């Protein structure tokens, strides 16, 4: 079964390599390129126009993992970007200033269109305003996604997003791609997305088993999530998740823990739910702190920034524009704080978590502002041990191993101390 486990990973590697190869060949193929963001991404629509998506956040995190982000950030800061602002933005701008070499070492093509899906993060807007300065010839389409301030999606907001899709985004896609909008093609992709979403939910939901067969945070961003964002709406995406689910089901059957960089986690001691993005510059080192302690993440919110499917939402071919509007507005950081707390409570209870951890990211106010209140609220509601650490996305200056380790050691001690009290009760 080791081979079977590797199947999804091999497939992921192949899919990503082919994607970046395609991107590197757009001059020859004439394919058009859309830069866009993970939250509120319109992958189905991009593929319906036969364009290729580029996700600057993903490039930044890849740069962080490849130890390139320090230089890129320095480059951007020298160009006037403050140390205080989002390191994803600076890393992306720095990478562009140094030749736009992507994760595979190939140069990324410039955008034909900047699809600014302004979903749950204000910085996205500023980011693409800045990129537009560097790519003056690129078309730019703004898709403003209203926040769920009232705790629900308002009717006026759905209509607003649909109108923007119909009158702003699609006409610009038609102009850039030179192709007419094909509703049937989009509908087909929406159906494929829904199939992949069913499988994705099953993968994430497997964390209810003990031991959990997945790590919903590190594994979540490493091999569960990426394919979903970049390839949703394709047959190969469905195949990937079918493969992955088979592997997960095998691990459930055999009571195996998740795969870590050092092999299968054999002794699950702590089940955790985490709020906030991971650190990318020290990804393996960061993950190692947890798996060496036998800690596994059974739920995470970062894996929901690209969409929440746990509650039943699926992309739908019935009314694709409405469906895309609902998808965008439902993304995690587009939800108000009480909604976010409720979702975390669901994760903690459904997946029988022993503790709740916040990884507070210096760069990301969209996530970070309010996390301390969320933490206290969950502690009060659920009487669960909570932990708090601070890192950054891709700025290595904000990763302090000893600080993080000290805090986590205390957190794990607290979890250990709680255990007998709980069982005695």
């Amino acid at each position, binding site marked *: 079964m080791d081979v079977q486990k590797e199947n999804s990973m091999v497939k992921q590697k192949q899919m990503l390599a082919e994607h970046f190869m395609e991107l590197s060949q757009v001059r020859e193929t004439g394919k058009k390129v859309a830069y866009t963001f993970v939250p509120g991404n319109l992958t189905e629509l991009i593929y319906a126009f036969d364009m290729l998506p580029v996700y600057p956040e993903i490039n930044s995190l890849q740069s962080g993992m490849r130890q390139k982000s320090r230089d890129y950030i320095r480059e951007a800061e020298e*160009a*006037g*970007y*403050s140390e*205080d*602002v*989002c390191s994803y*933005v600076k890393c992306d701008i720095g990478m562009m200033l140094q030749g736009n070499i992507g994760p595979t070492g190939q140069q990324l093509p410039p955008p034909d269109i900047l699809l*600014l899906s*302004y979903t749950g*993060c*204000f*910085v996205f*807007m*500023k*980011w*693409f*305003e*800045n990129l*537009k*300065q560097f790519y003056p010839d690129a078309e*730019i389409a*703004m898709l*403003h996604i*209203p*926040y769920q*301030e009232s705790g629900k999606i*308002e*009717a*006026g*907001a759905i*209509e*607003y997003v649909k*109108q*923007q899709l119909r*009158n*702003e985004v699609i006409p610009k896609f038609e102009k850039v791609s030179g192709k007419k909008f094909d509703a049937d093609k989009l509908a087909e992709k929406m159906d494929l997305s829904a199939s992949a979403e069913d499988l994705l939910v099953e993968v994430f939901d497997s964390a209810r088993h003990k031991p959990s067969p997945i790590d919903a945070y590190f594994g979540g961003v490493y091999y569960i999530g990426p394919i979903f964002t970049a390839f949703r709406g394709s047959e190969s995406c469905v195949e990937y998740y079918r493969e992955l689910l088979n592997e997960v089901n095998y691990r459930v059957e055999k009571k195996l823990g998740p795969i870590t960089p050092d092999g299968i986690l054999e002794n699950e001691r702590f089940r955790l739910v985490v709020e906030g993005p991971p650190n990318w510059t020290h990804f393996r080192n960061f993950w190692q702190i947890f798996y060496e302690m036998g800690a596994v993440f059974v739920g995470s919110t970062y894996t929901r920034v690209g969409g929440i499917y746990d509650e039943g939402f699926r992309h739908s071919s019935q009314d694709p524009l409405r469906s895309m509007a609902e998808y965008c507005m439902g993304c995690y950081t587009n939800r*108000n*704080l*009480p909604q*976010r*707390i409720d979702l975390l409570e669901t994760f903690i209870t459904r997946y029988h978590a022993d503790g709740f951890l916040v990884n*507070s990211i*210096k760069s990301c*106010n*969209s996530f*970070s*502002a*309010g*996390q*301390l*209140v969320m933490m206290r*609220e969950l502690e009060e509601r659920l009487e669960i041990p909570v932990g708090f650490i*601070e890192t950054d996305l891709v700025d290595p200056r904000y990763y302090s191993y000893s600080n993080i380790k000290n805090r986590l050691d205390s957190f794990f001690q607290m979890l250990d101390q709680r255990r007998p009290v709980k069982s005695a009760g």
Partner: protein
Amino acid sequence: MDYPAFKQFDYSQSIAFARGLVDDLNFSYVSRWKKANPSARVIGFLPIYIPREIIHAAGMLPVGLFGAGDRIPVVRGDAFFQSYICHLPRTVVELLLNGNLDEFDGFIFPSICDVIRNMSGIFMLQSKNRYIRYLDFPQNFDEQIGGVFYRSELERLMEDLQKLNNSGIDTQRLNISIDLYNKNRKLLKHLQDFRAAHPHKMSAVDYYLIRRAGNIMSVEDFNDLLESLLESVKNVEADEEDKIRVVVTGSFCEQPPLGLIKTIENAGCYIVDDDFQLGLGWMKKDTPSDTSDPVNALVQAYLQDSIRSSAVYDSENEKGDQLAEKVKHLNADGVIFCAPSFCDPALLDRPHLERAMDRHHIRHFSFQYHENLGQFHVIKEQAGTFADMIKLWE
């Protein structure tokens, strides 16, 4: 209100009154207003802009909450925000938890950044019996798209306020409110023009205090105060000093401490324009006040006549050229980019604004601050050097 007649105030009295309001973290003006209007509600709002006309037409008092600067020790506020989040939310939460905002019946959080947005959620959790509203402004400026959405947002706001105040907002009342705010912007524009022409007659601190107080007072009182000030300021006797003229930009939300504003002027720079209280002048033109559909008038004003700030989508980055135009129009010598630490909108705009200034051959320099900054020595050196450089070499 039973305040002394503003129209009889001389210049010093106007400034002293404004300073009293700004310094008063107990918002006693608000308490007195509530006593005079016992059934009416008070709505606090965060920077930058909200359509105050609607609050006013609902018989309510809109009050701007711009933090507490260095006038309050942050004890509990720090437990709500990590060290890398700007300072304004800390003092606002501190005021909330200390009971300084007890007279407020609701709070509106305009969509300007992630921190103010998430703060609406913090208030929902901390202040469960009060009206909390995050107000989304359209980033699409097409009348049939963003306009329709904005109207639905405003109508929802009006419904909420009417329930809260148990009183209706009719066409006539809304038109009256629009008219009062038109008058207010006109008076502010007169004051701005006067000050740009005679910066030595009214210090930047005094000018700031008047506008900041205007975000606390009722529009009727503020208009009276401005009318008297526009008369009294003409009588101020002061000699013009050999200072350069600068535009300060980037401080539209978290406010610089008074000491910082004073430091810039003392270092040899007359601040002839700034965005400290940007929301007061959000509309460039009068909003029609004689229509049968005043909500539509407000919507159209937002779409067509509002200024471009860092919180508003601007793909063509017209802000740079607009800033350059302003510098030329005001005959300013340079620009000071003065943004709060950790302010994403201001700091992410700064590089291309700086490039625009370079393109237009306009001198500039930049620094960051936070609202409770206590040391101004470095800024004084920077501003002084900037002023000397321009005076000596340009």
